[in-house]
């Protein structure tokens, strides 16, 4: 009887959380999934079209370009993880002014994407500060945000600048948990500093590395909208269009919520798959 009462109490405690997840996560997800099989035009004229939206995705060049751009973005992930790790190691080693660097690196993380985009708009535009600086030393101006060859790289650089401070903090927290006895033991065994880092500290940091990799992957796939909107509007052409921006275009500008939902579903499945693989690797390492 007491056990049943305990279960009821426990259920009451988790009920709000379950309700929140159900209402704000699961319901929109299911609704979006159903919407992706309709020709919703934003005016109530929805008609069930089966897999037509998904079929259309196979011939939509803007969607294909957005997937290629996503692949390019994901290919830069090692930089997103290794650069903050390197900086965290340097600060952890006690470089002069380490605390100042830590604060400076973290500072962009508290700025909104719109503010960061506006700042870099001024810096990167054709008649902007960076080109003015280049011009002063005789280097020809580059249309960083308006050229198909540089726009994506510029966008990635700005996004990296604005977010890596958080990863630096996580790595520093991880570094502080590495057992000093282990390091001391390695040193007594004659290990050189580089060997200590490679064979002792980095293996101990592996769960942290994997956590940062997962969080960063999800972040770059879902949090680039603000920067794209302010810096490039997805252009030139489709060179900085990512699936999340395309979803907004289809929904917000072309009034095609059905088609936008289909893109959302593809993005969701892709991200879920990627996250699953990464979490599996993390679990395997944790258990191994």
């Amino acid at each position: 009887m007491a056990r049943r009462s305990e279960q009821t109490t426990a259920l009451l405690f988790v009920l709000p959380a379950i309700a929140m997840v159900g209402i704000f996560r699961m319901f929109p997800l299911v609704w979006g999934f159903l919407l992706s099989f309709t020709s919703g035009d934003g005016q109530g004229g929805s008609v069930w079209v089966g897999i037509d939206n998904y079929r259309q995705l196979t011939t939509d060049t803007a969607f294909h370009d957005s997937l290629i751009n996503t692949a390019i973005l994901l290919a830069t992930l090692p930089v997103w993880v290794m650069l903050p790790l390197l900086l965290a190691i340097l600060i952890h080693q006690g470089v002069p002014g380490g605390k100042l660097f830590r604060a400076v690196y973290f500072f962009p993380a508290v700025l909104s994407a719109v503010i960061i985009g506006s700042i870099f708009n001024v810096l990167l535009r054709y008649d902007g500060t960076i080109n003015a600086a280049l011009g002063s030393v005789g280097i020809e101006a580059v249309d960083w945000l308006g050229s198909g060859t540089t726009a994506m790289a510029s966008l990635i650089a700005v996004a990296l600048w604005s977010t890596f401070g958080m990863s630096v903090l996580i790595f520093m927290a991880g570094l502080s948990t590495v057992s000093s006895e282990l390091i001391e033991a390695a040193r007594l065994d004659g290990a050189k500093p580089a060997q200590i880092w490679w064979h002792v500290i980095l293996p101990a940091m592996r769960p942290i590395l994997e956590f940062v990799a997962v969080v960063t992957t999800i972040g770059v796939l879902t949090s680039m909208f603000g920067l794209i909107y302010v810096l490039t509007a997805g252009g030139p052409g489709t060179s900085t269009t990512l699936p999340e921006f395309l979803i907004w275009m289809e929904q917000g500008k072309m009034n095609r919520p059905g088609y936008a939902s289909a893109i959302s579903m593809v993005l969701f499945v892709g991200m879920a798959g990627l996250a699953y693989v990464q979490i599996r690797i993390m679990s395997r390492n944790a258990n191994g």
Partner: protein
Amino acid sequence: MKTLVLSLALVTTALPAFATELTVWDWKSGDPAAAAYFAKAKEVFEAAHPGDTISYVMQPNDQYYTLLGTALASDGGPDLFLLNGGAQARARFENALPLDGKLGDLAANLAGTADFSEATGLYAVPLTIQGFVVYYNKALYADAGLDPAAAPKTWDDLAKVCAAFIAKGTAPCIALGNKEGFGMEFWFSAIAASLWTAQEQADFAAGNLAWTSPQVVAVLQGWVDANAAGWFPKGANSTAKFMDEYEGFMRGETGNTIGLISDVAHWKQFDEMLGAENVGVFMMPAPGGAAAKLPAAGGIGYAVNKKSPNADLAVEFAKTLASAEVLQVFFADAGAVTANTQMDTSSVTSEAAKTIFGWLATETVPMAHANASAAQLEELHRQSQTLLNGEVSVADAAAAMDKVGK
């Protein structure tokens, strides 16, 4: 006595139940230049309809049609809603009340109704007329050794003007902001106006003029040729049209700009910033085309929600919004070229405005891009940017446009 007091109390309590609040959606009522116009319309209407009130709800511009569509789909939504003329308006006609026979004397005094109508009738009351002309900086023309009084009339004239600007080397010839692709929208309609026949305009509007047809290809080729000839400044793809391009022109940094005739980026703003004596205007010529024309269309207009329980009252407010008395304020404050032909424009001193008003009477043709679908416009934005960068040929860009549905 007691009965009288009770009756009075009952009447007083019941009065608000008869009062009606009309909800009006737009994306403009928060604009300082338009604020006095909206306030005047509310004041005039509420004075004429005691107890009834107006509630303006301004929605974000870039989400407006999505929010409107969602609201209308829920069988609710506002009593009146603002629309852009052309394709955006036609897409909402199924939610709008037919207005034929409901506007009284006002109907005979409205211009721009074609962009708010289809074969089944009129579905919105136009407020303004919108169009594209080229404004030029007379001081920079003189600086480049050109006659400030001689505005270009043909493509060759424009080529000579741009050659003079390039030779001088101090200011770009034609300002261009194409970050969102709007630069191409303006170019497309301005060139098509002077290049296409009335039949070709009609064919394009009906979706019967292919993007790969010589007439449309000529417009795209003109874009590429002008860029290759150095008429546009570098960095157009990272320059926003509605901030950077026009601000640059108003600072006197560029020779010409394709601007609007009403509301914003127009004669009133440019006169105020550059001085009226320095602002000239001409209609955009086209390569090898006939006489230049002014692409114009019904700018914005109000539709009445056909499911509104207060539709009759909403029609009355739409008439107030489009009345000459109220629009006079919009004209005075924002320089809006209104759709009401009874407007008194005699107080205008701007030479550029007088010239434009003269053209409006005789030289207007359809605004081609307003007859393209939202999907076509989006693809046009993309193709225009890659054309400027030389990443795609005109033939390939036109072929890509043809793949997008009307």
